[in-house]
């Protein structure tokens, strides 16, 4: 499994995003670095392993007003071993935060779905935390387009 390291510098807001570059990013939008800063707050700077997460998103969204999102994390969800929190951020929205889900063993399954607003083609990044403080992550891109003839 690929380990992506988060340098302590990210917590301070300096330094570029370590593992992702995105295409054109308008200066009016949040940058990947701001999304990374949100993630660093969530993980306390700890490394997140890539894996265990499936992100259900359309590949193309005809508009960014209401894009369905479902995240699922592999976990037995027992009292001893469960996902306690799932962070969802975007790297091309005016602000990176989307939602943080908090789960318990009573959740039964580590999954949550909602509908989100996306400003532009961008990555959704999910970070999951286990009850004993381990972090997993993955990301998925959505192409967001708007009307064809200028409308």
């Amino acid at each position, binding site marked *: 499994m690929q380990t992506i390291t988060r340098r302590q510098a990210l917590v301070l807001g300096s330094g570029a995003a370590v593992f992702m570059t995105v295409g054109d990013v308008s200066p009016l939008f949040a940058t990947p670095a701001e999304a990374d800063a949100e993630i660093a707050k969530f993980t306390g700077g700890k490394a997140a392993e890539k894996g265990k997460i499936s992100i259900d998103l359309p590949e193309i969204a005809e508009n960014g007003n209401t894009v369905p999102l479902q995240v699922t994390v592999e976990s037995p969800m027992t009292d001893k071993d469960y996902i306690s929190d799932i962070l969802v951020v975007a790297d091309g929205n005016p602000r990176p935060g989307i939602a943080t889900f908090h789960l318990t063993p009573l959740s039964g399954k580590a999954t949550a779905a909602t509908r989100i607003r996306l400003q532009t083609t961008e990555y959704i990044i999910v970070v999951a935390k286990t009850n004993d403080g381990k972090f997993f992550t993955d990301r998925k891109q959505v192409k967001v387009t708007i*009307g064809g003839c200028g409308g």
Partner: protein
Amino acid sequence: MKRSIITSVGAAGAVAGLFAVAALFPVEAPAQAKKVAPLITTGDASVRPWKRYSDWPQRDMSKFNTLANLVSPPAPKEPKKIAGPVTGDVANGQKLVADRTRGGSCLACHVMGPAGNADLPGNVGPDLSEIGNAGREDEWLVNYVTDPRVYNPESTMPPWGTHGLFNEQEINDIVAFLKTLKSPAKFRSPLDDPMKRPAPVETRDNLDDLQNPGMWAVEKAQELWKAKGPLGSACVTCHANTATLKSWSVSMPKFEPRMDKVIGVEEFIYRHAKATTGADWLMQSNENTALAVYLRYLSNGQIIKVDTTSPGAKAALERGKALSARKLGQLNFACTDCHDPSKGGLKWIRGQWLGEQKGQYDHFPTWRTSLQSIWDIRKRFQWCQVNIRADELPPDAKEYGDLELYLASVNSGLKMNVPGIRH
């Protein structure tokens, strides 16, 4: 976003003397009424003066065709002669072809090599990534962009020059850019290639109120059904058994001889409610839209079948078909340019799929996710027009009735499925 306001017309007294009401008031309207429905047959059914929605583009396009007016400048009789090779700013040309504020622009319909980062271009027009090698003279390129009709009178493409979307120097810049296009576009992913992009499939359950806010209109309409109007009656007074209305909306729109005009569900609601309960539910008001959803919803599963045989309906159908082929607005598009598969139908404009006419009526009124509101078919017509840079007509315009009858006839045989949920 709040739309439309009910304008209250006044007390029942004002209402009583002013309108022509046909037919009687039955206790329970029978399923196949031999009597005709009471209607207010004079006056307008929508807000007057008609003012475009304030959050829509406010461009004045009165110099170009509408469904009611033929005023667009004519196409040039022949191509203009261009003396020598064209010089232009290639970088500016590359920007212009991707500039959405210019009505598209080119990238909406054409793949063009690196333009727009090859990010979701459309394929209504041919791929121009190698046009620089196609052996076209500069004169041909300049004239084609200025006004394609000098070479192809049936062209779908806007007359960018004749209609003032680009000036002469900008067209030269665009042509200079086109001349540099000599190799196939490099797409970052198959999704960016319109020839490989799969057509969108609507998988949401449109009748699930947790998926489709359009369904909340059904609940609202059921309340309105019981609400007493100024004349003291409500819909429920004559229509307690809504099952008898099951086959009604699939027969709409209808040519209405009393008005010499095609009436759709929304206009009917205004004119019928006004005549029977006194309620003032103008077209595109929240109440009218909720009831339009409800009356269609009552027909869900029934087959759309509109009358096109009466003399009035036949004439309206012919007019509607002709209107669907009329070039409108600054972009000079007819409905058929985008929605007939022989032209732009079933292709992409940028990242938006162009459906064909069959399948474009059975789900109206529909919830629109991009605009977070329920739209009836007349509003959809109006928005299309404004976005191709043509002035819209008021929702009860007779031209919309003709067009709607034509569209409904193309959709005959499909099952009603309302409210829809769409982009």
